[in-house]
């Protein structure tokens, strides 16, 4: 069904962006409401077209964007998968926008914030709506930009500026992979960029090529979803305002990578899925361990995000892409909530270091409650959203390979452990000494979205629960997985163990390790606390060499390329320019010799001109003789 109105969905926030960037200064506080209204309108529009995805009828709107040997189409398309994304983005987005009106209150670049925010939403909506890889890539890049702008929103802070740049560059590395994937996909025989055509493409393209393409696309996902080894930007991205962290770096944008995999899933071959699984697993475990050691609220949450994204990627890797999407949705809600709550804490205390926090449950009851709900949801307490999605993944893992199931179960325990540690240390225990003012509950405009999100975080999982699963219907997967009691029990056990450990080790600070293991434990702890030195490794192995190469080439350019042309043995500035000229002509590397010869010849000419007229005469006579001999 053709439906040009689809374009309105991203157009609302885009228009808001345009207005805000041009006239935001004059709008003042109204700028926030403009953004909220735009998002709400997008949400409304999304909801009004609910029937089509449920009916399995995609809504399509296409137009020609470029021409070449063939027209390059761009198009929007709403099917179940994208509709879900739309709902998630618009609903969470508008709630976070509401929250931000309070959080960003008084910021000098208030309207600018909402402008970026709107642009981001527009891009994310566009990405969800895209019916081909090209438009997806365009929106993908725009999101990268928004991420950059928002991370370095408080650019006066050098660390924020650096973090923004790091995020952009790191994801760009992945983007280039995606771009290369698109190039390949466009030009393999029978290739197409349309998502709808991908299953056909997958059948017709040779497997090795397909593996290459899918891995390149996955590279994009690795960058955007901050998978190992391109994960380094995400923790630093916490330099941005907290609502940004909530929306972009937890709920939606980072999930785009997972969404991309889901979209292009038909292209993935067993070999590439194996890679996906490996990367996801590494990220999941590795980020979880780091999260255990972090002492900054937002960083704990950031690593937890990494870990959860890893989990989704694992699900993708074992082929359970509906489960991964399901986890994506639930994760969006509870992680957004976690971040917003953390933001509430930070807003109240101006502190985000765990060691300086504590006992906030009394002063901030709402925040404390919603944080708890979200934590439990993430940990997978039976009945809460997180439980259902994690359960689906665990189930799939058990079908895939038992060892994976156990690893993931351990991961689940770890998840519980770090989030419980965070919760306990933040809201219980002795109240930390306050600086200047007493912590207080956030204003209503901030807490109301929290409550709304808490409802979502608790209940949204039911749409994918066994028995009642409109979610899977939307995705076109009809054999809903059943409720598996052992798995549920085991995951509950993991939750219990995890929270207990968190209580004893994380909160009470008891070292449970036997003495002989303690040095090893400490070393491990240090390793994790330093994020496995990945940043340092990059610095040494990648950044430094690149900069050094740049410097080297620059010197090369100045000294050799220019110098080869200019002649390094310059006698005078202008004399060397003679060489410059000659060298250009000869196009040779060893031009110096020729340049010297030229000047040498010039000098010979000077030397001939002794000023003695009889020398000239002699030369002339000799010339006559020589010419007479040669002319025959």
């Amino acid at each position, binding site marked *: 069904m053709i439906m040009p109105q689809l374009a309105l969905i991203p157009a609302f926030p885009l228009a808001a962006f345009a207005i805000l960037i041009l006239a935001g200064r004059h709008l003042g506080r109204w700028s926030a409401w403009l953004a909220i209204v735009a998002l709400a309108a997008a949400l409304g529009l999304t909801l009004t077209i609910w029937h089509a995805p449920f009916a399995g009828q995609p809504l399509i709107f296409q137009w020609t964007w470029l021409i070449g040997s063939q027209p390059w189409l761009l198009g929007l398309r709403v099917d179940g998968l994208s509709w879900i994304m739309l709902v998630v983005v618009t609903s969470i987005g508008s709630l976070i926008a509401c929250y931000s009106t309070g959080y960003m209150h008084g910021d000098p670049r208030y309207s600018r914030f909402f402008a970026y925010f709107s642009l981001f939403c527009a891009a994310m909506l566009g990405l969800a709506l895209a019916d081909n890889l090209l438009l997806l890539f365009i929106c993908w890049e725009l999101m990268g930009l928004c991420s950059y702008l928002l991370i370095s929103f408080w650019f006066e802070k050098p660390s924020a500026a650096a973090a923004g740049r790091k995020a952009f560059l790191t994801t760009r590395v992945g983007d280039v992979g995606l771009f290369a994937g698109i190039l390949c996909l466009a030009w393999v025989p029978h290739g197409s960029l349309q998502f709808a055509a991908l299953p056909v493409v997958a059948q017709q393209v040779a497997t090795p090529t397909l593996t290459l393409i899918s891995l390149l696309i996955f590279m994009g996902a690795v960058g955007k979803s901050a998978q190992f080894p391109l994960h380094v930007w995400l923790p630093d991205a916490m330099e941005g305002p907290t609502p940004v962290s909530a929306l972009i770096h937890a709920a939606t944008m980072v999930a785009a990578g997972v969404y991309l995999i889901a979209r292009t899933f038909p292209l993935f071959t067993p070999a590439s899925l194996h890679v996906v699984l490996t990367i996801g697993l590494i990220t999941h475990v590795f980020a979880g361990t780091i999260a255990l050691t972090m002492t900054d609220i937002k960083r704990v949450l950031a690593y937890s995000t990494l870990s959860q994204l890893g989990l989704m990627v694992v699900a993708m890797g074992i082929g359970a892409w509906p489960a991964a999407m399901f986890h994506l949705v639930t994760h969006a809600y509870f992680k957004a909530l976690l971040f917003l709550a953390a933001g509430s804490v930070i807003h109240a205390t101006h502190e985000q270091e765990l060691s300086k926090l504590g006992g906030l449950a009394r002063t901030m009851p709402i925040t404390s409650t919603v944080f708890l709900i979200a934590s439990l949801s993430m940990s997978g307490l039976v009945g809460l959203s997180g439980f259902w999605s994690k359960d689906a993944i665990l189930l799939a893992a058990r079908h895939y390979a038992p060892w994976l199931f156990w690893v993931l179960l351990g991961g689940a325990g770890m998840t519980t452990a770090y989030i419980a540690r965070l919760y306990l240390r933040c809201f219980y225990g002795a109240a930390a000494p306050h600086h200047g003012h007493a912590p207080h509950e956030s204003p209503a405009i901030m807490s109301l979205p929290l409550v709304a999100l808490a409802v979502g975080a608790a209940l949204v999982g039911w749409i994918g629960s066994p028995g009642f699963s409109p979610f899977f219907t939307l995705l076109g997967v009809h054999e809903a997985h059943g409720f598996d009691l052992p798995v549920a029990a085991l995951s509950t056990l993991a939750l219990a163990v995890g929270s207990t450990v968190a209580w004893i080790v994380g909160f009470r600070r008891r070292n449970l390790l036997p003495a002989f293991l303690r040095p090893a434990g400490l070393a491990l702890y240090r390793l994790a606390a330093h994020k496995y030195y990945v940043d340092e490794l990059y610095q040494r192995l990648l950044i430094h060499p690149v900069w050094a190469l740049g410097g080297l080439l620059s010197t090369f350019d100045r000294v050799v390329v220019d110098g080869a042309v200019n002649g390094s043995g310059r006698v005078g500035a*202008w*004399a060397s*320019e*003679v060489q410059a*000229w*000659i060298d250009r*002509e000869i196009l040779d590397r060893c031009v110096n010799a020729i340049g010297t010869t*030229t*000047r040498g*010849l*010039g*000098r010979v*000419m*000077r030397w*001939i*001109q002794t*000023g003695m*007229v*009889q020398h*000239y*005469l002699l*030369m*002339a*006579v000799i*010339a*006559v003789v020589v*010419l*007479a001999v*040669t*002319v*025959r």
Partner: protein
Amino acid sequence: MGLVLGESLRAWWPEACLGLGSLLAVLLSAFVPAKTVRAVAWAALAASALALWRTTAPTPTDIFYGVIVCDALGLAFRWLALGTVALVLLMVVGAREIEEAYRGEAIGLLLFVGFGLLLLSEANHLLMAYLALELVSLGSYLLVGFLPQRRSAEAALKYLLFGALASGVMLFGMSLLFGLTGELSFPALASSLAGIGSPMREAALLAALLMLVGVAFKISMVPFHLWTPDVYEGAPVAVTAFLSVGPKVAGLALLLRLCEVLQPLWPALAPMVLGLTVLTMTLGNLAALTQTNVKRLLAYSTIAQVGYLLIGFVVQTPAGLQALIVYLTAYLFMNLGLFACVQALVNDTGQESLTVFQGLYRRAPWLALSTALFLLSLAGLPPLFGFIGKFMLFDAAIQTGQGWLAIAAILNSAMAVYYYVNIIRLMYAAPTGATTALRPCLGLRVAAGVCVAAVLGLGLWPSPLLARVQARLSVEGRAYSAIIRP
């Protein structure tokens, strides 16, 4: 007999006016101020130009019993010679380095040499050619030595000695040629040489070579160019200007005529001339790169330019001849214009090193602009006239399949860009010495103005000139019938 003389004179008014004018000027200069001499000179020039304008000689005619030939080729070269004299006259009048007391003599000598140029470009007889050549030379020696400075006398001596050797060699060559053929007039020589046999041929070749040396000296062709830089540096600026154009014009005319005479020997001479052509431009440019004295630099530049000009000669086609004439015209204007600018500078600073150009733009923007224009034209930048000429020359070379000649010329042009533009660079740099405004005298301004107009105007609209050159020089005329081969 009276009839012959009368007819001859009718076709010979331009030369007669100029010759009488020079005589009058020289004689008067001892008694009247330079201003009067100047007036006489202008009158003579004007009369000569008028007479030349009325001369329509599309069909070649021998006059004065065959000593002189009036034809289209001669007409073109006579115009060029006259133009040179007129422009240099403006410079001589405006030259501060020439003492006022002797300016009259200088003007007279200039007209005298100009007269020689006219004769040289229409000589049709060995004696006439030798006489005209000596006339030009003697006048030039004197003009070069006109300054009270030591360098001027030195330059004159060098010029004299080199010139004497060259003309002596040439004369000896002529005598040998006469000994081989028994003829003195060009047409007779040509027909006599046409049927020459083997042992005679070698001797004739040697004689021809010796004769060509005289011409090569006049046009500063390598390896007979050695006098050029020294003489140019020592001579007064105006005289240098004259030397850089006038003798080249007449010398090339003589070369063309001699070439016609020597046509049977040409196949043997061609490779040598070709090689010397490339050598001339290359060595001229190479040496120019390291010069620091303006006049010396321009001397080498002249040598290089002669190299380009010779392309039009060595290709031996009508197109080449036309290109030669067109480029010669361009060269006349751009080089003399440039020298007018140099004269203005030398008048002001009394120095000749390249540094006098430094900051010229601040002192005299228009002067700097015209200098730049002339330099760019010399460098062959479109849409200036120099480019059109160069283009035609290169095209003529490529047309005859001598692409390598064009390549050599282009490489040379690229090399030349360096030193031409270097002067422009200096002009627009910050001044080091005087910063007061510099205002050239009227004569120099007129000279430079005329040259600017020509370089620009003929560059943008060369069509009338080209049409005329083509129309005149495509006619199968006697004077160049042999070198215009289909």
